[in-house]
């Protein structure tokens, strides 16, 4: 998974392009896409980290002043610790790291909403993208 992210190419606008082979977790054409980030090993009962990568598309850039956060779905089975932390990886990309504690081995499914903002010269957009991530747990 790390190799996929590290090997990303760039689109015409200079943005790091998401992994070409993987379907995005969420996308709004011409505005942004959200992809799965590199996943470290995760053990049941331990605090694990999941990462999602936001990429602004076309003329848009990531709004660096926006308080990005991940809001877990109320019915989510996996407890999530806090709203996540967002780090910019340049003008066009940022990574949201979500901490969670899986109760059992198997697959932990994180479900929630990524609150995000991207802007162009003409306008800003605030979006709430539904994200679902399946994480293998040992």
């Amino acid at each position, binding site marked *: 998974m790390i190799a996929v992210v590290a090997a990303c190419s760039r689109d015409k606008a200079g943005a790091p392009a998401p992994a070409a082979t993987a379907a995005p977790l969420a996308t709004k054409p011409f505005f942004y896409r959200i992809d799965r980030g590199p996943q470290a090993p995760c053990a049941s009962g331990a605090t694990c980290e999941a990462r999602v990568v936001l990429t602004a598309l076309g003329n848009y850039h990531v709004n660096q*002043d*926006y*308080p990005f*956060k991940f809001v877990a779905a109320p019915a989510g089975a996996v407890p999530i610790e806090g709203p996540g932390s967002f780090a910019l990886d340049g003008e066009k990309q940022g990574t949201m790291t979500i901490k969670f504690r899986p109760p059992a081995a198997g697959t932990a499914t994180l479900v929630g909403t990524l*609150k995000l*903002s991207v*802007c162009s*010269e*003409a*306008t*800003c*957009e*605030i979006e709430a993208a539904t994200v679902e991530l399946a994480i293998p747990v040992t």
Partner: protein
Amino acid sequence: MRILTPLIAILGLALAGSSSLADSKPAPSSPVLGKPAPDFALKDLGGKEVKLSSFKGKVVVLEWFNPGCPFVKNSHTVGSLVDTARRQTKTGVVWLAINSGAPGKQGNELAMNTEAAKAWSLPHPILRDEAGTVGKSYGATNTPNMFVIDKTGTVVYAGAIDNSPDGEGQSPQGGKLVNYVDAALADLAAGRSVQTAVTKPYGCGVKYGS
């Protein structure tokens, strides 16, 4: 060499200075803070002229406005601008929204402004500054961008409406929501200087024509 040595030293200092500046975020500032508020005469949505100078002796709040900006929408529907103007105008404060969007830019259309004023039950006029001269004279950069003018006509607050840059009041920096305009007006009402006089505004950029 006599000439070169001090030149190299100056160049080194300049480079060191620029490096440290680049590493730290600049403190928020405003070109009009502490200065007389630039006067203006603008027309409201009905075509009636409104002059700032006609409110001499009153406390005035200016709100840079764009109904197409999602931060403005959030602020007026769930955030700090839902009722601040209504509460403050009841105490005698004058509240003026100003749209400095140029023709053809987001949020400039008359109908869109009229609809927003109705939908959000705005108790104050929206003034049109299509040339952007008033916005630029105040250094307005964002929507919303707030300015508070005291009874002497001096700008005593410039910046954001609050410390929650999502516009929803749901992500306050430091954990506690602070409405900076309410705080500035409370300071003025108490006869003291404004404690937080300048903050960094958030939201959309003002859609100036050039």
